[in-house]
């Protein structure tokens, strides 16, 4: 199975690899997946407390090229969005952008889950109720 050029691009030059200081109250961290499943994503957002906008996003991913590309793309999309806008990112948008084949859809689901987990971690830290998300359809 050949990878799309966009997946290869993100794999070769991943955007926003790194770690944010998770002890800061304006940093939300989402860690999803499991080593036994062959995918673990950690996605972090740093929120500007005055504007409520995401000013930085970082990821680290253990997984295949599509998982790395999905998380790299997610961090790019997160920057500059409000956390409410970020919560609306749908995994199918990632699938379309990266031209992921059906066997790789779970990588995009994982990225969506990581975004939501990061947002809820931020909300929890800041005394806001956690958002309830519907279970993603594709797993």
């Amino acid at each position, binding site marked *: *199975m050949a*990878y799309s050029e966009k997946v*290869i691009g993100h*794999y070769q030059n*991943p955007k926003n*690899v790194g*770690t944010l200081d998770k002890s800061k109250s304006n940093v939300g961290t989402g*860690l*999803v*997946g*499991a*080593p*036994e*499943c*062959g*995918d*673990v*994503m*950690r996605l972090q957002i740093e929120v500007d407390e005055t504007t409520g906008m995401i000013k930085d996003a970082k990821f*680290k*991913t*253990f*997984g*295949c*090229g599509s*998982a*790395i590309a999905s998380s790299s793309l997610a961090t790019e999309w997160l920057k500059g969005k409000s956390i409410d806008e970020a919560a609306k990112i749908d995994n199918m948008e990632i699938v379309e952008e990266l031209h992921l084949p059906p*066997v*790789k859809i*779970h990588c995009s*689901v*994982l990225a969506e*889950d990581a975004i939501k987990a990061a947002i809820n971690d931020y909300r929890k830290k800041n005394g806001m109720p956690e958002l309830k998300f519907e279970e993603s359809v594709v*797993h």
Partner: protein
Amino acid sequence: MLKLPIYLDHNATTPCDPRVVETMIPYFTNNFGNAASRNHPFGWQAEEAVDNARVQVAKLIGADPKEIIFTSGATEADNLAIKGVYEMYASKGNHIITCNIEHKAVLDTCKHIEKEGGEVTYLKVNPDGLIDLKELEAAIKPTTILIAIMYANNEVGTVMPMKEISALAKKNGILVFSDATQAVGKIPVDVNKDGIDLLAMTAHKMYGPKGIGALYVRRKNPRVKVTAQMDGGGHERGMRSGTLNVPGIVGFGKACELAMLEMDTDAKRLSALRDKLENALINIEEAYVNGSRRYRLPHVTNISFKHVEGEGLLMGFNKDIALSSGSACTSASLEPSYVLKALGLGDDLAHSSLRFGLGRFTTEEQIDYTIEAVTKTVNKLREMSPLWEMYKEGIDLSTIEWAHH
């Protein structure tokens, strides 16, 4: 001169040796006869070529030419051996012993036997990838008719103790079948010294063409018979009907002849290259060899690089280097290699494995290039791996409650 791309997936298939192709070509055009045509020179020529190849194949495994049944490959030979013995020896019993790291062609055939009402024992292997002879002995019953153990494993390259296995079988009057697909032509295999009654092999793993293989079926001490699995013209002593694939058989024969002549030199050269590769790669932090390093094919190594995922790793260099991974990220089940899991590897280490299979045309320059490319990519992906970061911070990953998806 470094030649790219580099092919290090010789356990999957091998290129045809040009000398093999050369001997095959006339049998597509001028000498196209049907080996079963008894009444004209076209048939005689084809028959002579098949007879000659049968001798070449038999010689390589120390057999008599009459004991070679040509098939379409090892999968068919596995099916014919197991189903054929099960049906032929039904009056003696219905129990088969095999092991859990066999190729799917053996495992799925055994599952088929179970559906038919047969009984199958799947022996476990130890972390070296070898069966325990005591467990084998304990599994033997009065109804056991066949012990089916592979000669060498396709994923980790470990070599089973065939002589000891067949000694136990002989003592109990049980037939021994071995899927020797990965071993024949790579290491010395002798059906008499090894005490094997049925043996499956295929040409395309030993620099021959695809679509041709053979089942060795012993004719003396004891005389073994299998029921045919296809009805037809009664070719191959009635055990495998179908017009013989003459060009394939000629190529297979030539490949066996070459293996016979060059196996020792190939094995010496490749084990030195394999050791160079392996020693360099296990120098990387948290890298482990899977399976026995002692009882192993000379050209194979399987290595896990902890905290990086195999498929992601392959992507770092798969334009230049062809390799296999024990990760199964593309399969619907997301299950990694059952062979590595049977060796006791956790799913995480199985997902992190690469299989290197060197071959006749592998050069030292290619190995040097591979060492550099794999090392570079492992380091790059670890910089990107949350698991590596946690490991470096001293976090015990087994204490984390992972969200399984």
